[in-house]
């Protein structure tokens, strides 16, 4: 017996994270019964995105062009390179309007317990980039144990190439009151305190 189109659709939907057989079935029935137009739009959007979106050759972020808009901009400072884990992190830093340099998106983090090591992160592109355009590298990976491990690895790698490396600071949130903050953050903030020069 051949697999029906419906079965095929349900099987295909299960490639999404968190979608099991039940959810796939619900989605498939919804698309076919209630929203055919939406289904066709979804199909064409997926088709276009999957065949046209690639990684920017400079920052590794998703881009339809060889070099993404941000990297092609002439108004950015080429002397600084901010390394983030995911595209969403890049958007947050852009939203904060605190940084005018360039970016590099790792598209992940080192996580040995998930089997993600240095090879899986494809760091060759980052290495090539700093070798071609020497700059200060700012490590803006998450303050999780995996993010810290990634920062340590990158710092070792980049410093061996003679690159100046810094790590974003952590501590109390802006407008934060000591009374409300969690102990872990507070302990780290006290540990990483800095001298005031007036």
């Amino acid at each position: 017996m051949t697999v029906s189109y419906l079965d095929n659709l349900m099987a295909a939907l299960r490639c999404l994270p968190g979608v099991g057989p039940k959810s796939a079935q619900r989605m498939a029935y919804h698309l076919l019964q209630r929203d055919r137009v939406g289904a066709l739009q979804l199909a064409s959007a997926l088709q276009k995105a999957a065949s046209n979106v690639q990684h920017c050759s400079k920052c590794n972020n998703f881009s339809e062009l060889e070099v993404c808009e941000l990297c092609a901009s002439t108004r950015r400072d080429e002397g600084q390179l901010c390394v983030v884990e995911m595209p969403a992190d890049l958007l947050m830093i852009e939203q904060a309007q605190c940084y005018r340099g360039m970016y590099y998106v790792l598209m992940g983090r080192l996580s040995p317990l998930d089997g993600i090591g240095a090879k899986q992160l494809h760091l060759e592109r980052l290495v090539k980039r700093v070798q071609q355009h020497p700059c200060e590298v700012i490590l803006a990976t998450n303050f999780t144990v995996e993010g810290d491990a990634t920062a340590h690895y990158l710092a070792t790698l980049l410093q061996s190439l003679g690159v100046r490396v810094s790590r974003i600071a952590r501590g109390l949130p802006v407008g934060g009151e000591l009374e409300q903050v969690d102990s872990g953050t507070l302990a780290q903030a006290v540990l990483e305190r800095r001298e005031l020069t007036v």
Partner: protein
Amino acid sequence: MTAASRQNRQQDELAFILHSHPFRETSLLLDVFSRHHGRLAIVARGARRPRSALRGVLMGFQPVTLSWFGKGEVRTLHSAEWQGGQPYLQGTALMCGFYLNELLVNLLGRDDAHEQLFDYYRATLQRLAHEADHAATLRCFEKHLLQELGYALELEREAGSRQPVLAEARYRYVIEHGVVADDGRMDGFPISGKTLLAMTADDYSDPQVAQQSKQLMRVLINHHLGGRVLHTRELVKDLQKL
């Protein structure tokens, strides 16, 4: 609260988070090593919400007290409190911490309490944070872990004959058998009497002892892992090449 649900509730249990996975939209699935209940899977609902108070608490390598309920394979987190007193691991110490966690995740069964091992793990994290040379710390932990799992190493006596090991003699360590005199046979791992005695005393200051004990432990742990690969080892090797 019914009697049954009270029974399935654990209050303020000392624990470490070994690993966590994103789960559903805003939750975390935690792999927890607790002092009285061993390794457990616990879901922390809403832990990935932007303002979740759990974020700064559910960090690896930090002692926490957890309260949870449920009796199935996956429990549900009720609350978590930060204990403190353990400096954050950084650099190489952090990599070593990942190695400890990978060993525990791969070798410890679920719902099996190992209180001594828990205390030893806690002390080992302290050593990693305060000492510069981590090799000896890792060897001690590996030895302790195997012992807790029921594979205690007898290093100071020959298997079978029960003859005491002599520092100047040469031996072979045969897996699941023990130390035998080196009579030119090819099986087992070649090792000096000096290393065996130093390992018994947990003294890894001699470079040759450090080297041989590392290799012996690697062989033994690989045997117990049954073909599973430790990714932290690869990562540390990559780091050393830089």
